[in-house]
């Protein structure tokens, strides 16, 4: 199997490749360093980036391959993926400055129906890709898909990191004053029992998982507040494919988190089953 990391010569894409490298090592996958020649990125910088990554990959005993394609990035990549078997996940960086009519590479990628998982990274600390010790995954109440959990577990395993699932239950402003202790207890117990098997799974693979709870009026703000309070190095969140129309209706929690996260964050988009 293989893992693809999109490299464009920028320090952010280089950081993402290091995350991909750690992930590839867990499963002994080959890391494909992919670049689509498009005239925008400096080929020299791309090659330098690839050299840097290959150097580190050697240390980690991860096999790498360079792939240069030519054409319109998204369609070229789609074609490549469709013609190449055994690709597990595509790692790429996202840019934070959005342009209304020109979506970023990662946005276009997540909107395209691809038969692989996509991990979109928002890099704010260039230096933490190899220094990750604490990973957190916020979830809404007990909502957690197997695929997202598996990706989270893989990243935790890759870094042998401490991990935490941060469950946020949203309570509206008007009910905030009436939070009742017995109802709260019942709610928390329910969430815990739903998440219990994940803790068990972690124990099975010799990893330790913490579950923390919070009640909040605003999910995104609560997560950002939690990040500010603790020394996490990486956050895993579930990706959400947003249409242009849904954007018009205001920022979604996932966008707020991605935009304002003080740590490196990965939004995981599981592959769409046929």
């Amino acid at each position, binding site marked *: 199997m293989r893992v693809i990391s999109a490299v464009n010569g*920028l*320090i*952010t894409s*280089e950081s993402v490749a290091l995350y991909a490298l750690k992930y590839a090592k867990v499963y002994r996958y080959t890391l494909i360093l992919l670049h689509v020649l498009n005239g925008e990125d400096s080929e020299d910088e791309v090659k330098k980036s690839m050299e840097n990554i290959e150097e580190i990959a050697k240390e980690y005993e991860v096999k790498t391959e360079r792939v240069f394609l030519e054409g319109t990035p998204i369609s070229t990549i789609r074609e490549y993926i469709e013609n190449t078997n055994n690709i597990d996940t595509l790692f790429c*960086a996202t*840019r*934070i*400055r959005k342009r209304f009519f020109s979506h970023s590479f990662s946005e276009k990628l997540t909107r395209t129906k691809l038969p692989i998982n996509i991990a979109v990274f928002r*890099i*704010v*600390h*260039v*230096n933490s890709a190899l*220094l990750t010790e604490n990973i957190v995954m916020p979830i809404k109440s007990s909502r957690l898909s197997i695929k997202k959990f598996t990706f989270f577990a893989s990243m935790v395993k890759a870094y042998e990191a401490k991990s935490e699932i941060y469950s946020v239950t949203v309570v509206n*402003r008007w009910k*905030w*004053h009436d939070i009742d202790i017995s109802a709260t207890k019942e709610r928390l117990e329910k969430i815990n029992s739903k998440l219990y098997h994940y803790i068990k799974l972690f124990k099975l693979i010799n990893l330790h998982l913490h579950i923390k709870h919070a009640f*909040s*009026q*605003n999910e*995104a*703000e*609560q997560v*950002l*507040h939690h*990040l*500010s*309070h603790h*020394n996490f190095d990486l956050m895993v969140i579930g990706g959400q494919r947003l249409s242009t129309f849904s954007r018009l209706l*205001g*920022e979604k929690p996932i966008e*707020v988190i991605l*935009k*304002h*996260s*003080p*740590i490196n964050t990965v939004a995981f988009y599981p592959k769409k089953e046929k």
Partner: protein
Amino acid sequence: MQSFKMDKQILFKKFKTSQSGLKSFEAKKRLDSFGLNSLEQKKKKNYLIAYFSQYIQFFAILLEVAGVLSFVADHYVPNEGSDILGYAIFGAVIINATFTFWQEYKADKAMEALLKLMPTMVKVKRDDEIITIDSKFIVPGDILILEEGDRVPADGVLIEQNSLYLNLSSLNGESMPAPRSLIDEEAKRAIEAKNMVFAGTTVVSGSGIAIVTATANATEFGKIAGLTQNVQKSLTPMQKEIISITKILTIIAIFMGIIFFALGLFSDKGVLIASIFALSLIVANVPEGLLPTITLSLSLASQRMAKRNALIKNLDSVETLGSATVICTDKTGTLTKNEMTLKHIYLSSGESVNISGDGYFSGGEFEIENSNENTNKRVEELLNTGVLNSRASIEGKNIQGDPTELAIIVASNKKQLQTPNWQKIREITFSSDRKMMSSIYQVEDKIEIFSKGALEVILPKCSSYIDSNGEKLNLNEEIISKINDKAYEFESEAFRVLAIATGSGEEEANLTFLGIVAIMDLPRVEVAPAIETCKRAGIKIMMITGDNPLTASAIAKKIGLDYDRVITGNELENIRDEELEKILERETILFARMSGNQKLKIASALQNIGEVVAMTGDGVNDAPALKKADIGIAMGLSGTEVAKEASDMILLDDNFSSIVSAIEEGRTVYFNIKKFVTYILSSNVPEIVPYILQFFFKIPLPLSVIQILSIDLGSDMLPGLALGSEKPEKNIMNRAPVGKKEKILDWEVFKRGYFFIGIIEATSAMVAFLLFLHFHGWEYGVVDLNDPLLQKQAMTMTLLGAVTCQLLNVWTMRSWEFSAFSMGFFSNKLLLVAMVIEFFWIWMLLNVEAVQNVFNTAPIPLSDLWILLPFPILLFVSHEVYKWRRRVKLEIVK
């Protein structure tokens, strides 16, 4: 390896940069990836949602249902005017929603404009050139050039530095400048690393070059700013009040609507008539103008507060201020001027010098005890030594440097001294270990050293002193003892004491002791009277300061701030929350040596024991407490943007007395709202009673629904608003804070509004209606008048009966407890304007055909208008008597 542990070359490789800086195109690409280097507000208000939410308020929903029912009635029984009623009701809803939204929108926009920052320009190296750019365009990998006075725009690792000191107070509350170095082997976390610079901090002295490692939210500053984002805030007392008022009035309206609908069904009036009656009663019961009047009144109050240097960010907070029971205030800059002032000099020869004036910009006189012809010269020598050994500077209003050095420069300016123009050779910098600094100068052909620092450090380095004749003598035990005694005396009064000495050569040894100076950040003059006012107003004041207990208590004493005991930051750490609550219930505490994050604990404890907390703060680490407090107050001059963002109110002058003024305004607003709610409720009764009477008795329709709306959304609005802008009553700061359980819509408001003034107004309206009909030949039992003009005239009389009563009601309602005559006829300009407009409106109702067509009114012969006179006078006199009796009763209770 963490960034601060990497050497320069690895850092360059890691961040793909070099000594020459980033290439411009690379920086541009990185800006796309990392985003702007600014801490954006996380939640942008969606104005579309805000506008439409006005349509789902209790009152609005009630009216909308009434409107829909009107159209339903019109569908089944057309041409009965139900459709016009429907349009009128929806018109009222739209006007109400738009007006309320517009007020909030305007307040928001005004705030945004005030908070908009001037761009901070910073120097970076790009394409091998030093350029100045807006700090928001900084990206990781940029090479940052830092100089004295600069604000650090991002986190970075130093690659070069020269005696660099940062003020980290915005991050950790520590006001002492923190030295930086190129290597820090011991640090485990970035925030501890001495080879790092941090966003939000400032360069106190020295210079440096750093590689940017993190920008915006990823910086340490950004992380702390994130802490403020999720302190859950409860509803403000005003929001709770509005919910409570709307609930009560909605229940009354629905209840009456249902009763009359049922009565209509059981009588022979039929479903349609019963529905119209029910609808009319609902419309009459809902004070449509109440919400916009409250919003407008709060908006006007916030404008008045801005004039008194308190900028309100959230309109509802205005009223919360009136309920404040505790003010937790900083010391430096709020109670004091944050301008160190040199007040006393003690010369080595034993003469004392007192200097008048406080702060950086006041003048002052030197008063010398036991002086002789040499004293002045020795004072000048001491001040010159201080100035020569300083990096601070004052040029016009531009102040830079260490506060204690500034105090010496100001004293030297007061003496109009010319600092000698000698050449500075080098400087031995201050550090917290050395506790002294020295400057070495070439003085003609000699080299001289000028030193200042802690007395216990300087004195042992001195071998001589200058006596009263200007002679240099050997330092002896007697002189040392006298100097120590004096220093102790100053320190016990919370002065900061600095020793000043000079000598020959470059060594900090064998110095000649010149004297000591006593410096203090003095209290603001307006603070003591403001504290006195708070005492009378039943508001507790708790000082929370990072300073030591001695300084804090000395300032508290100077300003008349009472407290039971001092608790330090370390002690607070060991006090459990429940224990702290018990202590705060019993005692007033002075909190010393506190860090910003401990304020949150204090605010929570105070709130848990039922206090309404106003909390001041300026640093980033104060932000969570500001957000948690019922009223977070940020400092406009010295506060960080994060603190301002987290606060409800910004003090434009950082002055404690402005908080007290704001509280006075807050209390005024509370009572003004009470007054105009009573005023608005009063006119509900003459709107309801005609319908009830028409239901039970055989009389024509006394008032139409459109006329009800003309009162609620027309004639009541401006006078109501004028009541909202009434000035404070004379006892406003002599009463206890507005209690949490005190409601605006309490029994007193109901009693006065519905059952006293309302009944008089209803009587006025019905007497006017019936007498007018009677004078024009109507007899009881005739329900349908054949003369449409007579019907319109009679309805106009009902309307005028209510409106004229409201004309005098607004005057007597100007004071809740005191006589209307004590308020001054011309003191409320808006009320005078409202009166003129009211009379004009009445004139239009009687004379302008277009208005008459819309509002079902008609001209009234002058000979019939006298009917309207007695009741307004009765209303005014009886309410004045009521207030007088209440004053007497309250006085007896007191």
